[in-house]
């Protein structure tokens, strides 16, 4: 569904993505790596928030590389950004609605999608009329995920969804992500390798802008480098 081929990106002289290639089919895929490895840059390149110098990104056979972000999103990709990027002075409900209102195919299913969001994160229903900017960090994270799901995307990209969540919520979150995988393909950048590996079928390890390892989750779990560097075993 999504194919990233030999992507290179520079910030000034810093070479932050080096020949990165990866594929996402209909399954859930993880991208793991330490701070500064280039995970956020990679997902930004996919949705057109940064313009890579070389390489290609195709989605359902169509190149995304020249498309502006809003067209990438309208073609069926949704991103839950690391910084959440909500509308702080709009209510929780208005934020959710914004997730479907500007996607032509998703508009007519807006009420059902809203219902589904409230089922997935009941706290959002309680907070529906509150301004998004006044939510706690964790609640904002849930709102960002729910907003992205409002358009029923073919591919959902999550950039460090567990950041700032309490441990019990992290477990619950990855559980939910696994369920979301039944509705959308998932690409998830994470640092919490131990828990997120259980939510994905396959993973890539990215270090210094390069893919260092890739394989099915259970293989990565047994890999010595992963065990030492990411699982602390």
């Amino acid at each position, binding site marked *: 569904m999504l194919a990233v081929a030999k992507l290179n990106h520079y910030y000034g002289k810093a070479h932050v993505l080096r020949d990165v290639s990866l594929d996402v089919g209909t399954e859930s895929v993880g991208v793991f790596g330490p701070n500064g490895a280039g995970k956020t840059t990679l997902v930004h390149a996919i*949705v057109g*928030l940064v313009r890579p110098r070389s390489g290609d990104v195709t989605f359902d056979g169509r190149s995304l590389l020249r498309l*502006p*972000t*809003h067209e990438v*999103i*309208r073609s069926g990709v*949704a*991103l839950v*950004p690391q910084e959440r*990027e*909500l*509308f*702080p*002075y*709009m209510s929780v409900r*208005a934020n959710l609605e*914004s*997730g479907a*209102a*500007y*996607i032509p195919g998703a508009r007519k299913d807006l009420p059902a999608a809203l219902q589904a969001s409230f089922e997935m994160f009941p706290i959002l229903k309680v907070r529906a009329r509150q301004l998004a900017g006044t939510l706690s960090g964790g609640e904002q994270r849930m709102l960002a995920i729910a*907003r*992205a799901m409002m*358009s029923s995307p073919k591919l959902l990209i999550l950039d460090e969804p567990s950041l700032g969540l309490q441990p019990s919520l992290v477990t619950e979150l990855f559980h939910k992500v696994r369920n979301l995988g039944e509705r959308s393909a998932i690409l998830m950048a994470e640092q919490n390798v131990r828990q997120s590996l259980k939510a994905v079928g396959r993973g890539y390890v990215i270090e210094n802008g390069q893919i260092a390892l890739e394989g099915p989750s259970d293989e990565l779990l047994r890999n010595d480098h992963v065990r030492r560097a990411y699982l602390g075993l």
Partner: protein
Amino acid sequence: MTLFRTLRRWQLLLLLASLGVPIVLMLWKPYVLIEGLQRGGLYAVIALPMALILGVVGIINLAHGEFMMLGAYFAYWMGVYAGLDPLVAMIPAVVAFALLGAITYVLTIRRALKAPELNQLLLTFGMAMVGTEFANLMWTSQPLKPHLSYVYSSVALGKLRFGTYAFIYTAAAIVLLVLLQLFLRKTRLGRAALAVGQNPRGARLVGIDVNRTYLLIFSVSIALVGALGAMFLTRHSVFPSAGSPFTMKSFCLIAMAGIGNLPGVVWGGFGLGIAEALVSSFRGYGGWADVVFFAVLVAVIMGKSYRRQTA
């Protein structure tokens, strides 16, 4: 950037004051109330498009008053060559200034969106200078004004006799405020504009074409201020620097109300109009009217930051 927010306590106080002060004034100095609402309406209606641009596009358009001035010239020449009344000329002005706004956006503003704020200020300040000098070269610095008899209409209420025409500015401010609020809250395009104003990256990520939204809001705002220039011309003469005080006052009103607070801009406009009229009503103190404007501004901004520190 709030394009609207829930009513806060100080806004309630303001609301009470805005009801109480007029009642007192009506009994004590009715002319001040009338003059204040008329003058304040003009300030408010002209400030609204500038507030829209700042709230959505995030640009302080220091050429705002110059677009109004050009709109007034446009209406004047429409009167001379096509025999149009300035109020009728508002219609072609909307079209012409939407186009001018779009061209200005594409050629200049769009390129400065990512530039530091200081550069953006310099850019729009430069545009203001170009506008003024252009008018100067084309039409000299001589004030121009069409003769319109209907602006002298007046009514008598008991012993009170006053001009009614200038209430057109009061009405225009309220109508434009209501229309803009409806647009921003009820239409998909308006909601998209609110989203863009609050978080452009977030807006892109929900599928909004941010660039098109900027273009649209900028053109619409310039179209509005151009048409308002025509309305301005019915009561005032136009000359090259006629617009610049309105840039200043619009900016002050927006600073007082807070970015994105459109109703605040209108109430602020009425408040300042009344304050100015009050000062002018004391014989010999008329020259202090402008000082009052800025004194109120400084007081409000200091009051706001005080509240922020104690909150």
